[in-house]
């Protein structure tokens, strides 16, 4: 379920409640945020392979905006995402929205239970098989129909993995392709998505094609998840950027199921870089190392994190340590501590970089490290 607000209206009380309610009912909810353009919503629906797209509008501009979203969805070649609308929708407009292809309209006072009942009665369309050879553009862009295909492929991998034949094909085709994979790890709230959000436009400027896999935790009890990283990252709908949210069950070391298969497929689609944002879980995070070229460990001042990471042996797996939110007090002390730590005799001499609004040069340094620029 992808939830988003289109247009200028930023009243998000309702959509946030629905997001949490559906998460607690066991759904994987991707929160797309406010002020989304119809094109950005359609691209997100493709990338996330959404069964449902829920739009919330309280501004009365639904008859202008919803048709634009439906058109944008169709333009991407997306046949399977079903559109729902919530908010202040007069009765006569409800009928007109249905005629446009909206499958459900929910007004003020709708309970979460009513929405869940509605969704359960209409299980999403069955996944058809995907032919990997169709539609993959060997050029240098993920064209929009391919965005739908790629989104769908990642879902197939999430749901059960690719066939051995397909994997073999992918392995063969991978030869010669250089997709570099970067992991961003650190505890919850350290600012991993914000950092990536600041890196994306800089990478696009360098004409890099970037895929982001944003992992968020999944509830072990309901199986639901609330994936909120897109909001910070969605850099408009630049065709060079592809963002996918992934729900990670607990006990999986902070990375998604079958990450290696996802990386194969992304390489096949010709991305220059894949940024994997892991769930900040702590000790188990070392597993990410096997899948990626470089590991960026984020720490923030005054959090006591450094000590925890040191205990977990994480300082050892980092290729670069980023002091994020370096505008906060305590950044200097943390930097001193870290430099002492990583420059001990026998250690690898890991670079330490400060990043934050007041030090944009830190972002450039990380980018140079990623792209291998001097």
């Amino acid at each position: 379920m992808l939830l988003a607000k289109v247009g200028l209206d930023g009243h998000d009380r309702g959509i946030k409640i629905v997001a949490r309610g559906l998460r607690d009912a066991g759904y994987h909810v991707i929160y797309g945020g406010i002020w989304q353009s119809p094109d950005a919503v359609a691209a997100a629906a493709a990338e996330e392979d959404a069964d449902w797209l829920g739009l919330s509008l309280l501004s009365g501009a639904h008859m202008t905006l919803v048709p634009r979203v439906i058109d944008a969805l169709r333009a991407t070649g997306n046949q399977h995402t079903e559109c729902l609308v919530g908010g202040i929708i007069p009765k006569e407009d409800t009928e007109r929205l249905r005629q446009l292809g909206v499958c459900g309209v929910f007004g003020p006072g709708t309970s979460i239970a009513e929405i869940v009942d509605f969704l359960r009665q209409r299980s999403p369309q069955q996944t058809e098989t995907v032919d990997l050879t169709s539609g993959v553009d060997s050029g240098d862009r993920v064209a929009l129909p391919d965005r739908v295909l790629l989104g769908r492929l990642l879902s197939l991998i999430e749901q059960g993995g690719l066939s051995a034949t397909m994997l073999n094909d992918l392995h063969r085709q991978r030869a010669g392709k250089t997709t570099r994979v970067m992991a961003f790890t650190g505890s919850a709230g350290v600012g991993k998505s914000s950092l990536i959000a600041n890196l994306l436009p800089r990478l696009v400027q360098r004409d890099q094609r970037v895929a982001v896999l944003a992992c968020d935790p999944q509830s072990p009890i309901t199986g639901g998840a609330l994936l909120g990283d897109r909001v910070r990252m969605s850099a408009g709908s630049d065709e060079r950027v592809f963002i996918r949210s992934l729900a990670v069950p607990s006990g999986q070391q902070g990375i998604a199921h079958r990450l290696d298969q996802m990386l194969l497929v992304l390489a096949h689609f010709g991305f220059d870089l894949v940024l994997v944002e892991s769930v900040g879980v702590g000790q188990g995070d070392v597993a990410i190392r096997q899948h990626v070229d470089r590991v960026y460990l984020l720490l923030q001042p005054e959090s006591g994190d450094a000590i925890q990471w040191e205990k977990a042996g994480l300082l050892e797996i980092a290729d670069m340590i980023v002091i994020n939110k370096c505008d906060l007090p305590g950044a200097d002390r943390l930097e001193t501590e870290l430099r002492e730590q990583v420059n001990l005799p026998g250690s690898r001499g890991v670079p330490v970089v400060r990043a934050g609004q007041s030090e944009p040069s830190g972002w450039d340094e990380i980018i140079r490290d990623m792209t291998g620029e001097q």
Partner: protein
Amino acid sequence: MATTLHSQTSAPRQQPTTVSGVAVKQVYSDADLSQVDVHQDIGNPGRYPYTRGIHETMYRGRLWTMRQFAGFGTASETNERFRVLLRKGQTGLSTAFDLPTLMALDSDDPKSGGEVGRLGVAIDTMDDMLVLYDGIDLEKISVSMTINAPAAILMAFYLAAAQERGFDVRELRGTIQNDILKEFHAQNEFVFPPEPSVGLVVDLIEYCTDCVPRWNTVSISGYHIREAGSTASQELAFTLADGRHYVEQTLRRGLAIDRFAPRLSFFFNAHNDLLEEVSKYRAARRLWATLMRESFHAQDPASWKLRFHAQTAGCSLYDKQPQVNLIRVAYQAMAAVLGGCQSLHTNCMDETLALPTEHAATLALRTQQVLALETGVTNTVDPLGGSYAIESMTDAMVREARSYFEKIDQAGGMLAAIQTGFFRREIADAAYQYQTAIDRGEKKIVGVTDCVEPDEQPLELHEVDPMAESRQLERLRRVKQQRSRDEVQRSLQAVRDAARCGENVFPALIQAARTRATVGEITAAMAEIFGRQGARQM
């Protein structure tokens, strides 16, 4: 079709709670007031700490201002509605702007499509401002403007237009909301990042303190925090914390506290829970007075007095049996008046369906008039003062707010707490808990969860004029044709320069208004220096 009406008359099983989920005792007594000093904490009306009201005679001396919020389409249609409201006995104006204007976009911006003149009036240039208040004596009628991110720009338009019409700006009375912090907490109508945004708020305070002395420079707003789903005590605490931040930042500019504090005003929600709301207003006055006198050392009693506008809770209204909203609004208005508000907007019954019709707007105004003229609650000051329940709840509210102030300080102050999402998390948690309580049947809503009617009579609704958008686009095109491009460019450069040097941008804004620069152009000039703030996470 048979209607099934049932009402819950048996006692509820769990302990009753307020709308905000705070447990309410079966009975309150003097034992609940052990921590309250009757003279120091409650005192008398018109005396510090003003728990019982800021005026000795309260509504016996003067009624609250009945100030209904209005605006739609182009400036001409809104001007017409203003005149109707004044004819029907309204005593002040309150201006609703459309979403593009609130978001500092011009009507011809591609992002404005479908939103122009829909939820309020479209204002692009100073010319629209001239039409908006045409024929209204701005030295007699006080005008309120609900605008935040581009508040300084709209205020500059207002002043330039008033001067052009020959009014003396020193005589202008009114209020501009100009409260950007609650946009970051709750309403999401921000443009620049928090720090320069607050800088603009202070620019306006500083300029108006000098040149428009009768103007209320900020309307520090809890209303939207509550609408986003906060509890009553969060609304109270976050609003006063915002006020505290504006005071600190204005003091840093070198203004003396007693020069600007008397012109800070507040804006609270009037929700369903009458006792909780009355307690909230009384606690707000006590907290602010103490803060101003004890922490900021204000000497002038005018600096200690918390003056507030109230609006009934939009979020409490439903589209089922919409006429029932009339009744909700009446009780909420009663709470605001028993709490001692200085001005009041009562929502219309069709609020959840569309912009109000003239019929609905008239009934909303009549609700206030009945309250003022027929109920007798205006005859005595703070009639609920001294009630064990009210005084105990007021005191609890004060303590709750103080503990929130400490949490904000621990988070590193206002801006740090915004960055870490503290306010948004608190509000979203409360909103979700409230919804869950409704879904579980613990909180009841007439016409929605109980007393449901299968067949409802639909209301007549306000029709949005489909041509308003194109009329506004035509107006804007004409203004752009007639103005001097060079003058506009020069005035925008002056705005950039002022912003770059960290000067007060207000004089440059007034000049830009006169050249007929648009809201969007001026905003873009400032954004080159200040940057823009993107959407924030949940």
